[in-house]
């Protein structure tokens, strides 16, 4: 088309396809997408800044609230980082329980994604079924710690809750049920013809593109990217209970379904292994109130991919700087890459294919123009936020 006027379809900030606010503009010719622009930042909450005037213990609870789906993994990353700064390591039983809850959380996150992605493709039956079965793992988590969302099982230096025999049996029963259901879902996602029509060859990322855009987690692994923090740099008790790498080669949406569901089986196996070999020890180690000065990088594998924490202490009882890089931020680039040339009807599925988590990845970048002030206070940030939306 020689016309400069483009037909732009806006998706968001409020749109039925989006469960969280983000703004996407797709310029289309007919049904084919010719350009994408992404604008994020509608749910910036200033958590990194907020941690700077809270104590280390308070910050742990704050970071658990970065994400509503993978809350445990954030707290784990922060706790592991702080423990490293203090030269303390949590007792083995605590590490195993952390790992166990992390895997339960991965099951819950992947099943949630399965439902959302199916819904975006108009397959509401799968959506309803997978969310019904997800209740099993939610109930297990609630049984362990009393909460469905923020499990709050981590402490600096250990965990709060132990697992007794009754809980162990309940988890094993739940895992058996979920494994059976997951086989069913894997079969649907790899054999159902109408569903394959919406996923096979859609949103394909090659290995090279995946590397170039720095894709992480199951999204990257579906493109044959062999990276998993649990294997490359084992944390908590992943060294004692190793995970097998789950990858696929195709890089399309179907491969992402495939990888995520097969990761569920790996989680089931790991949960059984941990429950059978739960080490006996204390649950907590003592962590000083003032963390020694220093800086540390803590990496964990969240359900969506590599979660990166940079923690800096100046020796006081509050962190000086915490930087969180969530996996969703790494994966956005792939959307801009795969969207062009795809059909508009596939956009919701391509968007949800990376399992995006919007509020986790919203950050404020301040570009200095002449002004010499380097550090914003909480007040500055708050005022900026109010002005921004005025």
């Amino acid at each position: 088309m020689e016309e400069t006027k483009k037909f732009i379809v806006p998706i968001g900030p409020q749109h039925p396809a989006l469960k969280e606010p983000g703004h996407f503009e797709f310029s289309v010719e007919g049904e084919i997408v010719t350009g994408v622009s992404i604008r994020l930042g509608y749910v910036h909450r200033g958590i990194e800044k907020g941690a700077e005037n809270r104590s280390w213990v308070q910050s742990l609870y704050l970071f658990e609230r970065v994400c509503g789906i993978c809350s445990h993994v954030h707290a784990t990353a922060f706790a592991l980082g702080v423990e490293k700064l203090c030269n303390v390591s949590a007792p083995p039983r605590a590490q195993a329980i952390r790992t166990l809850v992390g895997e339960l959380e991965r099951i819950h996150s992947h099943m949630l994604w399965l439902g959302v992605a199916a819904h975006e493709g108009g397959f509401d039956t799968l959506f309803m079924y997978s969310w019904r079965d997800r209740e099993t793992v939610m109930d297990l988590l609630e049984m362990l710690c009393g909460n469905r969302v923020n499990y709050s099982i981590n402490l600096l230096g250990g965990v709060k809750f132990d697992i007794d025999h009754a809980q162990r049996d309940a988890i094993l029963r739940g895992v058996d049920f979920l494994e059976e259901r997951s086989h069913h879902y894997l079969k649907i996602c790899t054999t159902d013809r109408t569903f394959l029509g919406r996923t096979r060859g859609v949103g394909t990322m090659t290995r090279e593109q995946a590397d170039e855009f720095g894709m992480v987690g199951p999204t990257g692994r579906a493109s044959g990217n062999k990276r998993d923090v649990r294997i490359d740099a084992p944390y908590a008790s992943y060294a004692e209970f190793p995970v097998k790498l789950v990858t696929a080669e195709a890089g399309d949406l179907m491969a992402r379904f495939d990888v995520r569901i097969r990761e569920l089986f790996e989680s089931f196996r790991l949960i059984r292994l941990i429950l059978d070999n739960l080490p006996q020890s204390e649950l907590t180690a003592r962590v000083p109130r003032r963390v020694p000065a220093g800086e540390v990088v803590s990496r964990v594998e969240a359900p969506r991919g590599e979660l990166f924490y940079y923690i800096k202490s100046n020796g006081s009882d509050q962190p000086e700087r915490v930087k969180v890089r969530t996996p969703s931020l790494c994966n956005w680039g792939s959307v801009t890459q795969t969207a062009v040339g795809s059909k508009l009807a596939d956009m919701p599925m391509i968007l949800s294919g990376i399992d995006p988590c919007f509020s986790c990845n919203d950050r404020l970048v301040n570009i200095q123009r002449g002004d010499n002030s380097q550090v914003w206070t909480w007040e500055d940030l708050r005022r900026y936020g109010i002005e921004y939306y005025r």
Partner: protein
Amino acid sequence: MNNLTVPPLIAFLFFPGGLFLMFGGMAYEWIDRKLVARFQNRIGPRWFQPLADVVKLLSKEEIIPQGVDRILFYLLPVLALSAALASALYVPIAGFAPAYSFKGDLVVTLYMLSVLTLCLGLAGANTPNRFALIGATRTLTQLFSYEAPFLLALLGPAIVAGTWTIGEINFYTQLHPWQMILTQPLGFVVALVGLMGKLELPPFDAPEAETEIVAGALTEYSGRGLALFRIGKNVELLIGLTLVSAFYLGGVGNPLLFVVKTVGLLFVMAVLQSLFARLRIDQTVGLWWRIGALLALLNLLVVALFRALA
């Protein structure tokens, strides 16, 4: 085997036209929603939910967006509903003889049923909303894909019965109850699935795919207009089910048979709705022209051969 008849004025205002159709349509919408909900392991709506929806919509403010043709905006929902209601006069609703009938009313009825879809498309194209525009394009694209196979499929029984009058075809199928379903299973399948395409039910709901284009062509409609379009769709569901049962399932001779056959069909449709992922619009068109039209033509060919040999 004679159908009962009703006086003209009652036919027009209450039965089978008018009020009966509206409430009947709501009842069928409820059955459909409830069945799909149960198949999806949900609880589903209570029995008065469709009525409550309509009452609520009718009492709401109707917002007219800037940049629309106001007359068209008001007229289209009315036109859509009245076309759907008018087509009921030629159809043996609830097992009674059609209120009116003339030679070739089958073709007129099918066109009246398409008016609703045309109105939907126009309503979408009338607003400057981008979701509505895409929805309208998809609605009309879908119309062009299912309409021909649907028509071809319904012509099969008409040719066998040797008449183009719906009432007479209904008599014929009542006299030969097993003939159509045994001789024309292909036509039956095409007609039933065509009806789903017509009503934009899943998996043919690309024109109103909420995760892509919000509510499609009806995005800008609220209040009264939306209520009328919804009633129109319900009426069309009822009429479509009646037509398919009358043509393929041995006719509808009395109210009991009518309810049993149409609800049975609705059950099959609800199963189909919950089985599949949404088809993209290009997949829908491909399906209809590559498979649907071929099946319908094959069906017609068999019928024609049968007629020539008999």
